[in-house]
């Protein structure tokens, strides 16, 4: 993507930069939408990030331009082209959740997050491809095509918000919404070299989003910079009367202090879990990231989380039993409409015992108590997002070390399961590349409702690194 091309210059603007230029009337929302739709037309036949593309976005952009020129600023996303994972409802527009089961479903209202983004001036370009019903980590979708990684289209984009990760990385929108139950925002963020946040459970409304596992589902923005992520997050965060799981906790100011740095920040690491069983380039990138934080004045402390082992079983049990409950009727009435992998997982989830599920839920309390105790010693934790870089499209196994093939689902959730189970917020930030030029990502995990500290740490990291400025070769 040459920067000599004016359209590419637009596409390479961060969301925050685009916002500033729209506000100064130096660029028009129409220019942004045209550039993004052209990019989608050019790349999406290969990458398959979008399920629906809205040409009517051009009309919305023209209206946004007129409003801006006449002095009406709708909000912090005025005129910014965005896209939504296709499990997030838009009134009257197809919302498939990546499934055949919901292929023709037209919601009668916007999801709360969509309504908030729209109210802040965001323009929706379309809906993004994903793992079917968000139940899986590859985005190898049997109904809408396998999503492909812009860093190498032979590689997978991770998931389940694979289309969101790819659309942002390949400059097919300035920000996207994903959903995260066991890692579905953070995994594609890491694998595609972008930023994404899984919020504290209860910080962002799930109303109008097709559920995967109610007790762990979250929604969050995916962008190229931490500042962009904080900007979108500030629009969607906060209680919602339509979602009884949202918390009545005041929303922080995520932007004012974002550039305050990390001097004195205490960063916890758990060496006997988060730094074991990694591909060498992932280990090297995380180690280097910790050194970067130290150079910025942060303090690294080793912490023991005694009962962290066992989290993958708890994660798989809960993430199986809850979707099987939601899908119980459809699984009996139209099983043939599910892809093979999702159908099998839904069948498995019906055969776990209630005691397995409840013991897994009790384990979450134990793990949470240990992390809350650890927050007496540290302010955040840093760890890899996942132990490997992008595998080949279609792979169901992965080799992490010693040539041993491992089941993809268990391996991919090895580190993302911890925030999912505890409910703690976690920010994924790009922190390196492997020998093949494929991105590596880290997670910064924080206290409940303290997303501001995560954004501060991530922004400090991006202030002296350039991983987020690299462009995929497509």
């Amino acid at each position, binding site marked *: 993507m040459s920067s000599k091309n004016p359209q590419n210059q637009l596409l390479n603007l961060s969301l925050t930069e685009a916002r500033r230029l729209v506000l100064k009337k130096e660029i028009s929302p129409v220019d942004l939408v045209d550039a993004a739709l052209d990019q989608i037309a050019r790349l999406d036949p290969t990458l398959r990030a979008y399920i629906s593309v809205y040409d009517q976005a051009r009309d919305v952009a023209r209206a946004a331009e007129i409003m801006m020129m006449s002095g009406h600023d709708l909000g912090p996303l005025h005129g910014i082209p965005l896209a939504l994972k296709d499990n997030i409802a838009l009134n009257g527009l197809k919302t498939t959740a990546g499934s055949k089961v919901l292929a023709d479903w037209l919601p009668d209202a916007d999801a709360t997050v969509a309504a908030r983004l729209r109210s802040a001036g965001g323009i929706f370009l379309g809906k993004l491809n994903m793992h079917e019903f968000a139940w899986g980590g590859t985005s190898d979708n049997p109904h809408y095509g396998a999503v492909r990684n812009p860093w190498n289209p032979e590689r997978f984009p991770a998931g389940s918000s694979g289309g969101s990760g790819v659309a942002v990385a390949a400059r097919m929108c300035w920000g996207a919404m994903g959903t995260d139950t066991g890692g579905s925002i953070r995994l594609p963020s890491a694998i595609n070299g972008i930023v994404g946040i899984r919020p*504290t*459970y*209860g910080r962002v409304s799930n109303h109008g989003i097709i559920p995967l596992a109610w*007790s*762990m589902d979250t929604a969050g923005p995916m962008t190229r910079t931490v500042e962009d992520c904080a900007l979108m997050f500030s629009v969607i965060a906060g209680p919602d009367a339509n979602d009884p*799981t949202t*918390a009545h*906790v005041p929303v922080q100011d995520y932007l004012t202090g974002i550039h305050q740095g990390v001097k004195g920040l205490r960063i916890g690491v758990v060496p006997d879990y988060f730094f074991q069983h990694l591909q060498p380039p992932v280990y090297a990138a995380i180690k280097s990231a910790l050194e970067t934080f130290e150079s910025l004045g942060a303090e690294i402390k080793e912490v023991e989380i005694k*009962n962290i082992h*066992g989290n*993958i*079983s*708890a994660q*798989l*049990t809960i993430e*199986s039993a809850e979707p099987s409950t939601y899908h119980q009727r459809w*699984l*009996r009435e139209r*099983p043939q409409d599910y892809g093979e992998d999702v159908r*099998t*997982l839904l*069948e*498995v989830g*019906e*055969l*776990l*015992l209630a*005691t*397995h599920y*409840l*013991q*897994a*839920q*009790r*384990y*979450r*309390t*134990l793990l*949470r*108590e240990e992390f*809350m*105790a650890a*927050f*007496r010693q540290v302010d955040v934790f840093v760890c890899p997002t996942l132990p490997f870089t992008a595998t080949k499209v279609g792979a169901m196994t992965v080799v992490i070390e010693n040539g041993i093939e491992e*089941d993809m689902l268990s391996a991919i959730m090895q580190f993302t399961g911890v925030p999912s189970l505890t*409910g703690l917020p976690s920010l994924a930030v790009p922190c390196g590349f492997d020998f093949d030029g494929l991105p590596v990502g880290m997670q910064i995990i924080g*206290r*409940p*409702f*303290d997303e501001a500290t995560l954004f501060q740490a991530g922004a400090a990291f991006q202030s002296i690194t350039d991983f987020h400025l690299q462009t995929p070769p497509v």
Partner: protein
Amino acid sequence: MAAYAALPLEPSRQANVAAILSVWIPNANALSTKMSAAQYQSLVPATLFTHPATPEAEAKS
């Protein structure tokens, strides 16, 4: 088990499902055994945070 759950599971599908359960259930059993220990008897499932973390709250943990 599928019959007890009123889940139609054709013979052709049983092998795939059994392969996953044969790995997951022993791990789930191990977690259940761990969580049945006397020291964890008072733990109740809790998935929501109702307030931000504070030094006082962390001290109680």
